[in-house]
């Protein structure tokens, strides 16, 4: 690997990977060390978010990479695999790691030392940050940090990230590895070897990071030693001067399912496969399961280490977490509180976001007007105003809702409640072939399916993960809201029902419930058909409740919001421009001339502005009908008539393929109310209320409105979601599958809704 200019040691810059168990305060420490000097991006080729930042100490700059929280380096999920790949410096385009900052929870030292044993065996220099000291103290737990430093052979610094205590000491410990790197300037980026840097350093940096003395069973140790010798011989035969370490051989033997073996074969070539298989087979024949034997050895090592440095706490009375858990994890009360919390969150999202959404909408409206007035060329003006500005505005208008939802999710996550919600929902979701882990993505789906699908990475088994990805777009995301708002406002009577509840609010709630009621049985069917196999059992930590820090929450909300704008925004922007072209072309010159004549005559006769605007709207509608999109609507009209739709609704549905919310502006264009409309526009509502079929029958009835809403509740009209599914599954097969099944489901749902509603007299 070529030396990276940013990793030039003469400039005193080092790269540190921050790793630790989940809930150890790793991200809080990362934030405290890097402050505002943070960036988020993606690792090359995968969608796992890469968070990195800079910290300075003296004349040394430390680039910190915040790795996803993991309990082990045996990677079972996409997130965990990234942590291993970063440590091994085996990701293309990523800088090699110089030092590992291992975050260890002092209050659960024994458990945290399991990961520590694996990290230390990687052979990279390690600095340990001991966190959660305050919780340990409260529980009477005392850890001898000095003794731990001696036993692990690496600096252990007790820090308090929230109070900023001893952070400089920690950074100094990280920077102190610089001389050892200078002694081995080529250690991490030696192009001769095919091995990863982490293990490569085992040879060249012996003494800088002593390896933990994990006592493996004799037979496992012997097999790993023999394999190391055999593989070293293979390397030497290939002209590689490096040797394979005992730890490397051990990983190759024990990591069969988690990709360790594959990673190893990738580095050394196919010829080593039979050696590994033979070593493993001989152990299994003797009744020893390598990965279980290794896990047991590490647990014993961790217990031994903890036993020497931890003074256990005296049993305490119930902590605040215990008292809260008595209620919050209670089968009945916990569920009731959970449902109330969800209702409160969604209520807040809509009420808090509305003013901001209006502001953004008005801002883009003014921008469009300004652009319209300053561009003379008609085609360019239409492209900029109706394509570009309307496209970007259409995305950004949902940003407040999405950011607010993310803020709530961040609060739930940081407070420790989200794990309890997953615990509560596990029992229900398991009945339908999902697990509590599916809950978080499905909940995020109420804001936007794009980050929700990304959140499925924590689901370890592929079948459950794919099933969750497939049904998450059925939860009602914020893009459905404009469709619901328009239809309910225009066609559902403003009356009370069910003892004083607003009928309009009930229909809105019904739309949200429809998504969930359909998603759960669909998941069940998928798990029985396409995605068979047992779900990985629920195994999650329920962290201590904490009061989240506003700074961290705001940072997380802003980061995720920006990620949404970049991911979804780009796709929606591009497709909006394409959609504009489909509604703009072909230009019917005769039609344009006819309306120009009509307009001139009206102007000459001194007709009021409203009449002139009506002529413009009719012109727009006529041109839309003649456009490619209008033609497409005409073609599919026979198929949508049983849904109570005409060609204009069909065209608007086709136009909303890139994003559901586009249907509102598309209907504005197609029904001649103008493109600059939103779901609150009185003009559009009135136009729709007055719209008729070609035979003069009223087009929009309650039945039609319900049919359209059900269609949009169930359809997959979102290019950004499809692109995300493609990226997450690394295949076009699943986005095509999702689009197909959801479109069929949406059509059938709309058909049944219209026919039933019409039969009971709502037509």
């Amino acid at each position: 690997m070529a030396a990276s200019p940013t990793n030039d040691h003469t400039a005193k810059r080092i790269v540190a990977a921050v790793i630790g168990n989940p809930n150890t305060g790793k991200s809080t420490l990362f934030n405290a060390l890097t402050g505002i000097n943070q960036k988020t991006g993606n690792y090359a080729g995968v969608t796992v978010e890469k968070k990195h930042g800079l910290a300075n100490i003296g004349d040394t700059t430390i680039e910190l990479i915040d790795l996803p929280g993991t309990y082990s380096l045996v990677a079972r999920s996409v997130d965990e695999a990234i942590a291993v790949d970063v440590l091994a410096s085996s990701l293309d385009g990523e800088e090699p790691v110089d030092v590992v900052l291992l975050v260890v929870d002092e209050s659960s030292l024994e458990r945290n030392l399991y990961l520590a044993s694996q990290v230390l065996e990687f052979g990279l220099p390690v600095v340990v940050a001991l966190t959660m000291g305050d919780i340990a103290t409260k529980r009477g737990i005392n850890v001898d940090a000095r003794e731990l430093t001696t036993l692990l052979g690496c600096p252990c610094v007790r820090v308090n990230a929230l109070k900023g205590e001893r952070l400089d000491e920690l950074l100094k410990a990280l920077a102190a590895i610089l001389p050892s790197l200078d002694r081995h300037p080529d250690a991490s980026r030696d192009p001769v070897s095919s091995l990863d840097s982490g293990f490569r350093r085992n040879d060249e940096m012996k003494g800088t990071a002593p390896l933990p003395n994990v006592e493996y069973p004799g037979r496992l140790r012997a097999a790993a030693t023999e394999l190391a010798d055999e593989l070293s011989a293979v390397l030497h035969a290939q002209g590689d001067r490096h040797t394979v370490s005992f730890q490397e051989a051990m990983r190759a033997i024990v990591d069969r399912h988690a990709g360790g073996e594959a990673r190893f074969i990738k580095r050394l070539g196919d010829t080593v496969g039979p050696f590994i298989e033979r070593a493993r087979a001989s152990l299994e024949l003797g009744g020893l399961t390598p990965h279980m034997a290794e896990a047991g050895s590490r647990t014993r090592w961790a217990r031994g280490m903890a036993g020497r440095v931890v003074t256990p706490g005296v049993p305490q009375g119930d902590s605040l977490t215990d008292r809260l858990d008595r209620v919050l994890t209670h089968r009945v009360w916990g569920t009731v509180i959970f449902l109330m919390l969800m209702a409160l969150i969604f209520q807040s999202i809509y009420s808090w976001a509305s003013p901001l959404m209006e502001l953004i909408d008005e801002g883009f409206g003014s921008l469009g007007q300004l652009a319209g007035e300053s561009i003379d060329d008609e085609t360019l003006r239409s492209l900029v105003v109706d394509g570009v500005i309307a496209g970007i505005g259409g995305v950004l208008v949902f940003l407040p809702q999405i950011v607010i939802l993310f803020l709530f999710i961040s609060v739930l996550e940081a407070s420790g409640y989200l794990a309890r919600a997953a615990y509560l929902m596990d029992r229900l979701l398991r009945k339908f072939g999902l697990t509590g882990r599916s809950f978080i993505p499905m909940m995020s789906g109420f804001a936007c399916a794009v980050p929700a699908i990304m959140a499925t990475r924590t689901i370890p088994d592929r079948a459950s993960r794919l099933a969750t990805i497939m049904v998450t777009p059925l939860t009602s995301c914020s893009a459905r809201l404009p469709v619901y708002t328009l239809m309910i406002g225009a066609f559902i009577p403003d009356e009370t029902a069910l003892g004083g509840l607003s009928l309009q609010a009930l229909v809105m709630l019904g739309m949200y419930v429809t998504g969930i009621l359909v998603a759960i049985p669909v998941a069940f069917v998928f798990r029985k058909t396409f995605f068979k196999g047992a779900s990985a059992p629920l195994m999650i930590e329920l962290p201590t409740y904490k009061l989240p820090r506003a700074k961290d929450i705001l940072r997380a909300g802003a980061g995720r919001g920006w990620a949404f704008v970049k991911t979804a925004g780009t796709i929606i922007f591009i497709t909006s421009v394409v959609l504009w072209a489909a509604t703009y072309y072909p230009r019917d010159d005769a039609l344009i001339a006819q309306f120009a004549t009509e307009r001139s005559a009206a102007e000459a006769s001194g007709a009021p502005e409203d009449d002139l605007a009506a002529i413009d709207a009719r012109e727009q509608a006529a041109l839309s009908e003649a456009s490619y999109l209008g033609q497409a609507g005409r073609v599919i009209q026979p198929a949508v008539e049983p849904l109570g739709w005409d060609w204009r609704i069909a065209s608007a549905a086709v136009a909303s393929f890139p994003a559901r919310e586009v249907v509102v502006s598309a209907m504005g264009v197609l029904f001649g109310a103008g493109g600059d409309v939103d779901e609150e526009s009185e003009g559009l509502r009135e136009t729709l209320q007055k719209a008729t079929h070609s035979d003069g029958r009223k087009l929009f009835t309650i039945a039609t409105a319900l049919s359209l809403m059900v269609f949009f509740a169930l359809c997959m009209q979102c290019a950004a979601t499809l692109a995300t599914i493609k990226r997450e599954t690394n295949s076009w097969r699943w986005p095509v599958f999702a689009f197909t099944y959801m479109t069929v489901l949406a059509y059938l749902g709309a058909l049944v809704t219209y026919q039933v509603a019409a039969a009971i007299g709502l037509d």
Partner: protein
Amino acid sequence: MAPDMTTAHVAQEFSMAEAKSRVVYSVLRITGHDDCSCRLHELGIGEGTTVMIERAGNPAIVRIGSSKLALSAECLHRIKVEPVR
């Protein structure tokens, strides 16, 4: 006849799925060879760990030291325990 200590010891062994709430147990071993069994070790449950069911059910809430885990019954069946005397 003197009691067979081995038999007496084994007779005390049962899975955590059968354990009583709010009683402290000591883990004897983890059975099974799959990812779930391995993950239990990674989460800090191994031979000698003291555990307690804090809330029974499926999933159950299990206390290990000062941490709490939500574990499904499938996992609990793999954890063989004996009461702490």
